[in-house]
Each structure stands twice: as C-alpha cells, then as structure tokens.
C-alpha cells in the first residue's frame, strides 16, 4: 500500500521532485509558506493535475501523464482533512461523515457515520449537532472521521493542528498515533511546526519554492541536511561557515577550518580554529563549506572541565544570551577562541538554574556529529556523484 509520487511543472507554479511513503508510515511535508506543501496534497487528492507526473498508491496508478491516466478525486480512495476542516455548515456532524459513505445504502449511512464519530470520541448527541455548535477540536474530529469513513488508501492532513489549542492538540496527537497503527496506510501531513513533524513523523520531505530539497527519516535530515537551505528550513541552530583544508595527519580525518564567511581567501587571517573531523574524501582542499553540528553533539560542562577525549573538542564559553521557554532555556554561548561565533543550546533541568548572562562554562563538541556541506556542488563532486 506504499505511495510513490513524482511531479514536474513550471506553470502556474513551479513544482518538482519525488518522494515515497510506506504503509503505516507518517510523512511530513515541511517548508516555508508558499513552498508548495498544500499544492502537493492537492496533486495527491486529484484536485490538481501536474504538467508531468506519476502517482502510484498500493500498486494502483492514480496519475500517469505520460500514459494519459488521471483518476478523479471521486475515483481515488483518499481521505483529506482540510486546514479549516471544510465541514458542510448546513449538515449535522453525522451527515457530514455520511457524505463520505456513498458506497453504502442510504439507510445505513447515518448509522455508520455515528460509529465513525464514536471512534474519534464524539458522542451520539454531539454527532447530531451542526459544525457551528461544536468546538474547534470537535470539528477537527468530524473532519478526520469524514476522511476515514471513505476507508482511504491514503490519508492526507493539511495543517490539521494549526487551529486547535495545546490541550486538544495533545489528545489529537494520541489519536493520530493510534490510527496510524490501526490503518496501515501511508499518511502525509503538511505542517509548518518542526517540533510537531519531528515528534509525529517517520519521514520528512523538505520543500522550498516547489522543489523537494531532501527526503529522509527526520533524524537523518536533522543530522545530515543536504545543504545550508535545508539546515535553515529544518531549524538547525548551529550552522557555520568554513573551508575544507583536506586530509589531516591522522588517516580518516580531515581538517575543517572555521571561518567567518564563505570567502576562502580570508581563511588564514580570520580564524585560527581548526576542527579534525571525518574525511569522506569528497571535497577538494580549499573549498568553501557550510557546516552544522547536531544538538546531540554539544554538551555544556562546568567551568574548568578539562577531560580530553578522542573525537571531542573542548571550547571555553560564556553565556551571552538567555531565554526561558518554560521547562527549558535557550542559551547563546560565545567562545573564547572565536568570540564572534555564537553557539546555541537548549538546556533543561537543574543545569539551567545557574545560567545567567556572563556565566562561564565549557562546551564539549562531538566532532563525529559535525556535518559538512559544500557551498555549491563542485564540478568534480557532481561528476563523482554521477
């Protein structure tokens, strides 16, 4: 029951890329406003036809522009929860769900609809109310029940959590987790909330200006973003400039020079900090790079900590900024060796209590969690990839 989609068009808006999602997997489409997230959902639902493309769900071809195949939304078994739910205002909750039960005889539709509403925890009394008489969270459950009542082969959720409060959101997260195991179909979720995407999804698809920039498990995309744009879009805090200096004296390790800009001419004069990190032999020496270090690769230690370990570097720091976010704090740290660079970390628990501006400490950076991205694909690199 896997989903495979590929698409390409230039007008009326540019869209291109491909991705796939297995049955039982939850895939999140993330990207800034106007990145084309909702358009891709519309392609999947059959509400929009791309200039070129192919969509296959569970072995059935829903769209193949090369062969002239296009299944209408009515022919595809797809459930779609709209951003503002799109419930019929003149119909009761049960009648809204019954709309998606066209395959049943008329007399059975309402009974079945009430059953579906019970599954999303709406009482029989609430089922008879019109959408305007229900709360936002209840309306969303009705929309979800309507999408599920069609017994879809693919479930699409367009920013379903954006209009409900935190408490409702938590219970809807739980509901979605339950449904995911019960349904065993691909689920595609559009969201602009990266935490939500990380928490709920098995797979991320990062979109920008209609292009699929990267597809992969959320953990993988965060740890190894394909380029600096992906790193920014998925909210990686610690992204820096550098220059790849080539292999070091230790086999398997190379030298990353930390720079203030991508201008490699300034490498020697600007900064003396060099990091020894894994050398994959793919980047030519002297090539400008962006690099990121995953949050898991940073640990804040007390001042004076000096336990040197292989594969780690100790950086004396002091706090230059501090934001309290309830149960955790976001802190900005300035390094003694590179005062202009700021490391950002989230700290929680007892550790954050003494952290005020000016407080000193040591950051232990795991060099194995540094990921290096060439500024732009080098011709030699492009050739190697081919």
């Amino acid at each position: 029951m896997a989903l495979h989609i590929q698409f390409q068009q230039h007008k009326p808006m540019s869209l291109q890329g491909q991705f796939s999602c297995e049955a039982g997997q939850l895939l999140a489409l993330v990207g800034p406003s106007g990145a084309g997230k909702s358009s891709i959902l519309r392609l999947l639902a059959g509400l929009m036809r791309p200039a070129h493309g192919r969509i296959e769900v569970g072995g059935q071809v829903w769209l193949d522009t090369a062969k002239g195949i296009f299944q209408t939304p009515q022919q595809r078994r797809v459930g779609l929860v709209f951003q503002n739910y799109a419930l019929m205002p003149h119909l009761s909750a049960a009648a809204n769900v019954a709309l998606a039960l066209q395959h049943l005889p008329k007399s059975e539709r309402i009974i079945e609809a009430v059953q579906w509403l019970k599954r999303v925890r709406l009482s029989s009394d609430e089922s008879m109310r019109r959408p305007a008489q229900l709360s936002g969270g209840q309306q969303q459950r009705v929309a979800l029940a309507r999408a599920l009542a069609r017994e879809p082969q693919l479930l699409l959720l367009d920013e379903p959590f954006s209009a409900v409060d935190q408490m409702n959101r938590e219970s809807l997260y739980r509901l979605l987790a339950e449904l995911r195991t019960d349904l065993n179909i691909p689920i595609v979720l559009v969201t602009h909330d990266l935490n939500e995407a990380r928490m709920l999804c098995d797979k991320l698809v990062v979109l920008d200006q209609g292009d699929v920039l990267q597809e992969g498990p959320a953990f993988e995309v965060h740890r190894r973003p394909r380029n600096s744009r992906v790193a920014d879009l998925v909210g990686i805090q610690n992204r820096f400039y550098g220059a790849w200096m080539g292999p070091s004296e230790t086999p398997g390790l190379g030298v990353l020079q930390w720079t203030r800009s991508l201008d490699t001419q300034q490498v020697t004069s600007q900064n003396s900090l060099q990091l020894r990190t894994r050398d994959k032999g793919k980047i030519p020496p002297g090539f400008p790079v962006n690099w990121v270090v995953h949050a898991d690769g940073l640990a804040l230690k007390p001042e004076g900590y000096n336990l040197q370990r292989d594969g780690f570097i100790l950086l004396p720091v002091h706090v230059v900024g501090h934001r309290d976010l309830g149960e955790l704090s976001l802190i900005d740290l300035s390094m003694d060796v590179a005062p202009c660079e700021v490391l950002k970390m989230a700290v929680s628990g007892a550790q954050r209590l003494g952290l005020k501006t000016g407080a000193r400490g040591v950051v232990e950076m795991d060099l194995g969690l540094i990921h290096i991205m060439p500024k732009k694909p080098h011709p030699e690199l492009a050739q190697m990839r081919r």
Partner: protein
Amino acid sequence: MDWSAFSLSIQLAFGTLLVLLPMGLLVGRWLARTQFKGRAWLEAAILLPLVLPPTVMGYYLLVVVGGGSPVGQWLQNTWGVSLAFNFSGLLLASVLFNIPFMFQPIQRAFESIPNNLNEAAQVSGLSRWAIFTTVELPLAWPGIVSAMVLTFVHTLGEFGVVLMIGGSIPGETRTLAISIYDSVQSFDLQAAHQMSLALLIFSLVAVATSLLLSGRRMRTVKRAV
C-alpha cells in the same frame, strides 16, 4: 380592482420565473466558478437592464421583433408567431428585463460558498450532480429565493417596457401597473388606490422576506469559513 390585470400580472410573473430560474442557476453558477477573458463585458451586459431606461429596451425590442422587422417577419412566416402587442412578447420583454434581478443574487450566492466545501465533497466521493444538490443548492438556497422574490415583484411592477412592447390590451397585455396608469388617466382614483396599495404591500413583504433570508445566509456562510 382590475382582476384581469391582476391575474395577467401574476401569470406574467410566474412565467418569467419559470423561464429565468433554470437560466439563472446555470449562468449564475457558471459565472461564480469560472474565470475567462471578456467576463467583465458579459457581466456588464447582464447588468444593462438595471441602468437602461425601460423605454429604450422596449423600443429596441419592438425594432427587433416587431412585425416590420426581418426577425418579426421570419417568426411570422416560419412559425406563425408574432411577438408585438401580445402576451408572448410581454413574456420575452419581462425575461430580458429581469435578467439582472435573477442572475446577480444567484451568482453572489454561489460565489459565497467556499471552494474547499466543493473540494471536500469531491474527495468524499460525491458526483458533480450530488455536489450540486446536496452542497451547493442548499447553501445557495436563500440567495436563490431572494432572486426569485425580486424577479417576481419586479415583474409585477414593470411599466415602461410592457407599455412599449404590449400596449394596453385588456386580458392580453394590460398588467396591474398599466391598469393603475389607465385608472389614473381616467380619474378612477379609487381603483388606482386599491391596486397601488395592494402592489405596495405585496412588494414590501416580498423584499423584506428576501432581505431576511439573505441575512440568515450571510450568517451561515460566515460560520462556515
């Protein structure tokens, strides 16, 4: 009270409704959902009867379908039909003159239905016809009723165009409005008063009902968005 004029006006109003309603539903819905070049011209043409003096329209109708015109002669020779100074001509004039009263409210009613409701219905598996009958028609219904009421009342009150194309033949083309005019001309103020008052009350009730329904529609649609 000129009952034959009253009955003729009612017949004309129902006849106009019967012809215009299906056209209004088709064209109003089409205009609400479709963008195309020249749309502004078409909408202007639909609105034209609102701004044109009724006598101008009546005059052109007489010129086009009158017995002396090529169209009038063709109608007479081929079908044996004459459209000047009879009920059929009156009906044609009334239909044309009421186009904006029927088309505009229906178009606005369909326009006010959020597009995602239509899309949600498609994704739920509803056919185009089922979407029209179960989603669009119920949501546009108050607007459609407004259009029907306005057209009906407007037909009862028509004067200029009716006089131009139909004259004042009792039982054939003398409508209530013409009859009021004739009564005043012949100093039968009592009859003029009765008919005027009846028309006034009827129109007031109809327009108020239509406004009430439009208000309710607005509230329903606002809740939907």
